């Protein structure tokens, strides 16, 4: 087969520019992209971190992920916009709609990124670089925001390419361009290399992607195990996963939701309620993806930002909300030392298909409750998440389902 041609489209400072365009359309007289501004969570409910920043805000040293208070301190006149997930979802779908004119194989990688398989389309739409320019300009003119496009022969290189030049640019990074365009970058710029891996690599004297690519693969394997091989392949631009169009269930390792509570929880019952609201979301997602889980993990972050977690394996895989909830509460009771809680999370993993499940005679039967779960899921699917909820949440100041955003959108994943 000939070499594939893959585009990676990345919206530039997505949340901020989407909010800015939406504001302009609704009569704003300033373009928030041109002044120091950020999209930040609500400080009153303690979700006050910077989600996105404008380019002028970047000049003040404001970083994504830092508290809004710190950002305000760095730049006194800073404009803080609230997140508008419905706007973001609209922008994202509009972007996909335009991309559909260029190929039928599109993978929405996160809310602001997607891969397009352009292989074979050059016969119809012409040279890839020209088509990418056209696509980029159409998004700019029709939707009002800019994107960076990366073009290459696989998803990894396309993603690296779109990072090279921002904003409003088209960049190619084919195999023969790897040494000149990619190897000079620091290892941290390589996809999947985070703080921990970077530190380890630096200790080995590997500072750039080129250093990594030219290191003996056996040495990397010895230190990082199988991960070392992945790193080496990525540094050499070797990656061959297909562009998975919508509908193909991605390879999921686990499903988890967490939330920062708008007050410090110091009471076991309230903590259990928060856990229940998280399990409701996790359980629904689990059943929706047609999985059962074998492992439950509960994590706590205290008001002093100390985190710890506990996990337990089920004897029999389950997808029942009550079964997971019961286990989550038990785990919580075992590990909680009584300090005020800021953040709680529930995660299930070791997933398996839910079509054939081994039953156990020794454990409680959750069969009837599973039927209730399915009925509740159906009602929620049809009439919205708040159409039916547990009476325990009445007047509790807590949302009956927590974690995630308005809809299940691919937010971030490390799997190409």
């Amino acid at each position, binding site marked *: 087969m000939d070499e594939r041609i893959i585009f990676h489209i990345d919206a530039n400072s997505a949340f901020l520019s989407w909010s800015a365009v939406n504001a302009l359309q609704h009569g704003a007289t300033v373009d928030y992209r041109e002044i120091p501004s950020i999209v930040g969570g609500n400080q009153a409910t303690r979700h006050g971190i910077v989600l996105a920043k404008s380019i002028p805000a970047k000049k003040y040293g404001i970083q994504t992920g830092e508290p809004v208070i710190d950002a305000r301190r760095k730049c006194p006149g800073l404009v803080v916009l609230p997140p508008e997930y419905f706007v973001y979802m609209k922008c994202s779908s509009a972007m996909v*709609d335009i991309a559909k004119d260029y190929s039928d194989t599109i993978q929405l990688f996160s809310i602001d990124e997607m891969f397009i398989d352009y292989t074979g389309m050059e016969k119809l739409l012409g040279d890839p670089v020209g088509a990418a320019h056209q696509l980029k300009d159409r998004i700019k003119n029709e939707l*009002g925001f800019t994107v960076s496009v990366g073009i290459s022969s696989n998803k990894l290189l396309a993603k690296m390419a779109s990072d090279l030049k921002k904003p409003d640019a088209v960049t190619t990074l084919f195999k023969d361009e790897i040494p000149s365009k990619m190897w000079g970058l620091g290892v941290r710029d390589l996809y999947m290399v985070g703080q921990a891996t970077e530190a380890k690599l630096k200790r080995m004297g590997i500072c750039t992607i080129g250093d990594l690519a030219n290191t003996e693969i056996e040495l990397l394997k010895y230190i990082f195990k199988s991960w070392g091989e992945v790193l080496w392949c990525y540094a050499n631009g070797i990656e061959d996963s297909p562009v998975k169009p919508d509908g193909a269930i991605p390879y999921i390792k686990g499903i988890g939701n967490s939330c920062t509570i708008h007050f410090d929880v110091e009471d076991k019952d309230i903590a259990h309620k928060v856990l229940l609201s998280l399990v409701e979301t996790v359980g629904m997602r689990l059943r929706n993806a047609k999985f059962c889980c074998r492992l439950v993990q509960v994590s706590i972050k205290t008001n002093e930002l100390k985190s710890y977690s506990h996990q337990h394996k089920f004897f029999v895989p389950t997808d029942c909300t009550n079964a997971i909830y019961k286990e989550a509460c038990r785990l919580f009771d075992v590990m909680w030392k009584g300090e005020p809680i800021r953040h709680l999370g529930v995660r299930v993993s070791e997933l398996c298909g839910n079509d054939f499940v081994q039953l156990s005679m020794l454990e409680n039967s959750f069969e009837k409750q599973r039927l209730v779960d399915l009925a509740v899921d159906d009602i929620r699917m049809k009439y919205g998440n708040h159409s039916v909820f547990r009476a325990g949440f009445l007047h509790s100041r807590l949302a009956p389902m927590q974690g995630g955003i308005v809809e299940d959108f691919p937010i971030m994943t490390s799997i190409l």
Partner: protein
Amino acid sequence: MKVYMKQIKMIAWFTENGVLTPLKFQIQGSDNEIVTIRVDNIVQRGEEKLAGNRMMVYRCQSEIDGVEKVYELKYEVGTCKWYLYKM
């Protein structure tokens, strides 16, 4: 022209093909007085999809207080709201 982006009450008509044309609208003035304006002439019509949000945009002309004025109206398809965008 100044940007107002003020919600307005509107009477408009649709053709059988779905073409929408504004006829007349009411707007609350600064002294809470309600003003009715008849759309005399549509100079230009267009559609925008900024941020993925569909809006029909009309550049119109009307005689207001004896003065011929040009202004822009917007119709937000998703919410069915009319706005006086600029005047």
